[in-house]
């Protein structure tokens, strides 16, 4: 396993997992557990190297587990890595596809964008982030896109504004066959709202809380077109126009207090 840090809080791990690498397809995820006491965390694979037998995950430190993951040095390992999980992205030649990535969602978007590029689609990529420091995989995304736009909330790079501003401009000026949006839930919600007005099919990748990731608990259930689906087996990708985003946001905050407490305890332990 290799680790390098390209930002203070955004971490990339390349993990040796030959069997997962052999089977993984774009859009699929793995579940990782750092150690004996650890919890199971789902992360969508950003890259796969079948020859080397490795998979790559990119994540932001947001709580105890991701902080724990980030402390792993090259040569150390996760105790448990399981996958590939979830249904792969359906990729085919459609025409013009706009791939919209927000924050670390870009990592998830990368293999899907590459898949669409290789399938012969005209790929336009929009990357958004809080500021230039939070932009990731710019070069890799540019290599699999015919056109790329960058947006930052604070204007420190590219367009000063949200990804939806850049997307609207494209939708107003040309025919788009599909939009794929992956990032924070509010971003996916607003992209879907916009594309619905234009009648453009939109795929999003959802990130609900998961435990097993194999369909046995329903912890990751989401409401799609009024029906309950398990994101770990039916997804994680869904029709963006059918998702109940407010419910997803609500369910994602279920353990807010416990998550804070867990991270606090981690710092207390370090002080001992």
């Amino acid at each position: 396993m290799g680790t390098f840090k390209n930002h203070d809080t955004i971490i990339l791990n390349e993990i040796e997992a030959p069997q997962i690498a052999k089977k993984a397809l774009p859009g699929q995820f793995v579940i990782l557990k750092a150690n004996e006491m650890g919890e199971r965390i789902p992360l969508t694979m950003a890259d796969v190297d079948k020859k080397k037998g490795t998979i790559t995950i990119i994540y932001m430190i947001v709580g105890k587990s991701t902080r724990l993951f980030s402390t792993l040095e090259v040569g150390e390992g996760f105790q448990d890595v399981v996958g590939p999980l979830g249904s792969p992205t359906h990729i085919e030649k459609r025409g013009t596809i706009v791939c919209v990535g927000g924050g670390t969602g870009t990592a998830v978007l990368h293999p899907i964008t590459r898949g669409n590029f290789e399938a012969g689609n005209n790929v336009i990529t929009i990357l958004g982030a809080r500021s230039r420091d939070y932009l990731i995989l710019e070069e890799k995304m540019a290599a699999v896109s015919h056109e790329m736009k960058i947006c930052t909330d604070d204007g420190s790079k590219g367009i000063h504004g949200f990804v939806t501003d850049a997307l609207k401009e494209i939708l107003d000026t040309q025919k788009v066959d599909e939009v794929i949006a992956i990032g924070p839930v509010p971003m996916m919600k607003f992209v879907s709202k916009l594309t619905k007005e234009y009648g453009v099919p939109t795929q999003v990748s959802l990130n609900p809380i998961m435990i097993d990731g194999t369909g046995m608990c329903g912890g990751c259930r989401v409401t799609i077109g009024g029906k309950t689906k398990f994101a770990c087996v039916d997804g994680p990708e869904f029709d963006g126009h059918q998702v109940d985003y407010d419910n997803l946001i609500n369910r994602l905050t279920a353990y807010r207090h416990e998550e804070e407490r867990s991270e606090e305890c981690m710092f207390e332990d370090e002080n001992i």
Partner: protein
Amino acid sequence: MTKKERRQIPRQLMTERHPKQRNKYFDEVTLGYSLKEAQLEAARCIQCKDPQCIVGCPVSIDIPGFLEMIIDHKLEDAIGKVWESTALPAVCGRVCPQEIQCEAVCVVGKKAGREPVGIGNLEMFIADWARSNGVKNKVEIAPKTGRKVAVVGSGPAGVTVAGDLAIKGHDVTVFEAFHKAGGVLLYGIPEFRLSKDIVDYEIEGLRELGVKIECNSVIGRTYDIDELLDEYGYDAVFIGVGAGLPNFLNIPGEDLTGVFSANEYLTRANLMKAFDFPHYDTPIIPGKKVAILGAGNVAMDAARTALRLGAKSVKIIYRRSREEMPSRHIEIHHAEEEGVEFELLTSPLEFIGSSEGRLAGISCERMELGEPDEGGRRRPVPIKDSQFFIDCDLAIIAIGTKANPLLTNVTEGLELNEWGNIKADPKTGKTTKDRVWAGGDITLGQATVILAMGMGRDAANSIDEYLKSLGKKGKNEKN
């Protein structure tokens, strides 16, 4: 001791922790027999000529045989006798519904006012004795056959198949999706009924028989069945993946925060040890007022878990009456002793949320029992205008599980029934797919640990027969 003297011994009760103390901790409720109690209980067995208890046991343990050895204080022989038939005696002694199996047919219990021999308690005693004295399973392993078998799932069915085939000299690998082996014994049945150390110990015993266990392997994703057979050189596959997909009620508000499947709640608490949060990293919402929907063993487990996590009140909500409750009587009794309340003849209509989208209560209606249905149970019928509200901040849905389609969806040639269970020959476990057997809940729907083990035993025999028909592995065969 004469027969008459034997008949006069009352059934020995196992010591249990006090309900008002034990409902705060996850320690095991029953403390087991002392040697003296075990010998007294074993002496109640009249050593029948034609022991029906062996017939009543799905894995045919020689019950009078090991009981006699306990009386004679030949404890190592006694556990050896049990191990001839099962690799999981500490588990079975604890979780088998003996009242409908071995003990149901015990002659001693046929006389009015007499209770059957405590076979389950004695099995638990001898297994616990072996564990605490470090006695290892010395069962004889047949010479290596060179034949490879893949077992999918490490629950009771898979573990039985793996143990049996290893003893017969085959090279067995068990594939488990979770990070630890044991299936429902680990994630489903709580610590206070079955300590996880016991499950780990009995799984370790399997490794000592030469079985390899590969965790974090989701068959259907990480590997496919055909890949195992054609690429990795397995001669046969046994599928024992259970029925792990939870049923939901499909009523409004089910997606509110605070509504869980029992599978999720119990997995967090048991497998992930969320009861020890933040020492362990997985959180759980403990709940102050908890409602459990359903009345099977899983519902009792969830209810008693919620109590131990600090709930002030726990209510079982069930649409029929007490007589129809599918749980074991002992579990209902334990739950009641610990303070679980029963809201019977009650059916949930809707989960009601607070302004923050968290569960605030359940709108219910009262039921009455009408005509019997196809299964012979009286069908519950709603009473008009009987709606009422149950105040709760946590609801756990325990209305059963069904087959998980993850594996069956991607495996060609496996015929399923209308509920998505794999069709398998009831005698051999043979499926419609060449070289593939199945057993346990994935074929039966949700059943019991011991039934899964019994089916595992039959499938192992059938697989062994098939492997023998292939002959010893030739040098020119692909490995």
